[in-house]
């Protein structure tokens, strides 16, 4: 292997700052509690991160296209409640596609408003956050939704099953990440998403149908949300109406932590996955260390800021920038 020049090392650092931060935290937590790095624990963290992770994959597309999606939390509650309710009414075979269609319809509506009507995505999805919450409550009448026969349904496979010794939620998350990673990095559609988010006007002049690209991004996001809802419903076979409440901000934090720009045009699926894992492992690591929980809120924030700082510092090759 050829020796790396200083410059090459520098450029690797610049690209992978967030990975370095991730590795540092893992080492710190492992020192804090030796059980942190056991296979059981790693699996359990990635499995519970899978729900947030799947949602973050879709939101990555939306953010790169230069928009926001704050509705994913309540949309996830909606899919969870709907699929649980329909499970007992029409059976899981029909309930799953029906739930996907309804969720995609919501995503399509947002995509239409933001893409074709060119309304501000912050306002549209902030409104949808509470509108969909209301829709869920109306649908369920405020009741918790539970599957009656919890032992006898194969529906639990998406959240509780394992294949080849690996929990199914992890397989879904990994498979979807690989697929969407390829779509974003290697297909013409992926390049259009970057172009639309990077410079919308330029994209239009190069013949890219901007509205359609944005619309598709929201559809993909809704598809991811539906998948997350499916995992969630299958994991606990019952749910409150508020199960996804607040997740929209965690999803956004993971995407931004992974390095996607809120202004659009940059970010990758792989780094979003790292962002998701950092959030998941922070939560788990602090629990294992046994920090008092009021303190955890503060420490979580400190770690996120540290990660962002390390990422930025690696990019500019300095810990701080004395000029501007």
């Amino acid at each position: 292997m050829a020796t790396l020049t200083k410059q090459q090392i520098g450029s690797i650092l610049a690209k992978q700052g967030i990975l370095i931060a991730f590795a540092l935290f893992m080492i710190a937590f492992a020192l804090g509690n030796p059980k942190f790095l056991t296979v059981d624990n790693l699996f359990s963290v990635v499995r519970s991160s899978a729900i947030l992770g799947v949602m973050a994959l879709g939101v990555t597309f939306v953010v790169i296209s230069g928009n926001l999606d704050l509705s994913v939390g309540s949309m996830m509650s909606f899919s969870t409640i709907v699929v649980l309710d329909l499970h007992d009414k029409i059976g899981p075979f029909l309930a799953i596609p029906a739930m996907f269609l309804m969720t995609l319809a919501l995503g399509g509506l947002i995509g239409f408003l933001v893409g074709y009507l060119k309304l501000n995505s912050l306002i549209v999805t902030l409104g949808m956050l509470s509108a969909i919450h209301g829709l869920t409550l109306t649908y369920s009448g405020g009741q918790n939704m539970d599957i009656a026969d919890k032992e006898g349904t194969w529906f639990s496979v998406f959240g509780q099953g394992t294949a080849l010794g690996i929990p199914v939620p992890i397989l879904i998350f990994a498979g979807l990440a690989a697929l969407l990673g390829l779509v974003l990095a290697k297909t013409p559609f992926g390049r259009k998403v970057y172009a639309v988010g990077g410079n919308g006007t330029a994209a239009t002049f190069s013949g890219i149908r901007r509205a359609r690209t944005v619309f598709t991004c929201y559809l993909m996001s809704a598809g991811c949300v539906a998948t997350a809802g499916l995992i969630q419903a299958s994991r606990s076979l019952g749910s409150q109406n508020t199960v996804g409440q607040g997740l929209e901000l965690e999803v956004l934090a993971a995407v931004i932590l992974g390095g996607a720009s809120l202004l659009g045009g940059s970010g990758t699926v792989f780094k979003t996955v790292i962002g998701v894992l950092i959030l998941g492992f922070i939560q788990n690591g602090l629990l294992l260390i046994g920090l008092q929980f009021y303190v955890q809120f503060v420490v979580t924030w400190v770690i996120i800021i540290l990660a962002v700082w390390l990422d930025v510092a690696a990019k500019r090759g300095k810990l701080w920038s004395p000029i501007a």
Partner: protein
Amino acid sequence: MKLRFALAATTAMAVMTGTASADTMKIGITQNNVGVDSYQTTYEKAFIAAAEANDAVEAVVLDAGGDVARQIAQMEDLIQQEVDAIIIWPTNGEAVIPAVRKAHQADIPVIVTNSNIAEPGFDFVASFSGPDNITQGSRSAEIMCDKFKEMGIEDEAQIVQISGQPGYTTAIERAKGFEDRLPEVCPNVTLMETQPGDWNREKSQQVMEAFLVKYDDIDGVYAGDDNMGVGALNAAKAAGRDGIIFVGATNFAVGYEAMAAGDYWGSIYQSPVDDAEAALQTALDVLNGKEVPFLNYFDTPKITQDNMDEFSKPVF
């Protein structure tokens, strides 16, 4: 009995003025957020039923939809309407105090239901009718201790606690009741750690997963309600850890079912019907000049696998 609903309070009020005759008592209620969960939905139905069953009562039933500003406006409407008594289920224990004071100044007795307002407002309240969270917590400790004694592990058992949302009075009181009572009844049981499950089944499942990794030996789990208790149970089942005793501080339908399946040991039975009826009765007692304690708790009995057939499955 006459009963009117008012959704948009102000418009509906005009219709109702003058319907109260001398011998009926007009009681207004402004609820927290009907429809957001089954407890509150059942509460409202039970309140209306209790009011309808009583010829001496004319009820004005309002709902704040979780909105503090709307609740304050509803209080003012009820004062304007000169109802005989107001029952309030506070959307926020601090923010409603000025409105409660206003009613007090207008000589309308205020009964707080389900969750009390903050202490600075106590002077303006005739009575609080609701469950006693501290008692619920301490009874949960007794349920768990009794079970450990039955199993013969009361001298070595180790437990963890999953509490409600940090900062909520209900969460704090249910934890306090448990933590104070446990060492009195089972001094050698160790509470190893407490973490919040935020009243959320999924969050609680994640917390329990971490506990299971961290502690090789867990004999019992105390949860602030059955929703969280069942989340913890799911985590234990997935990890193949048997023999853990699960106790919650409020019985939910999922907890009741898990008890019937033999997976979950016990909880505290809190009926929204009792809650609603107690609130109305407290208001009537205050109006009839009876001596009513300031903290007028209704009973929330213990429920375990042993006696669960005496209770019907909770509706929420």
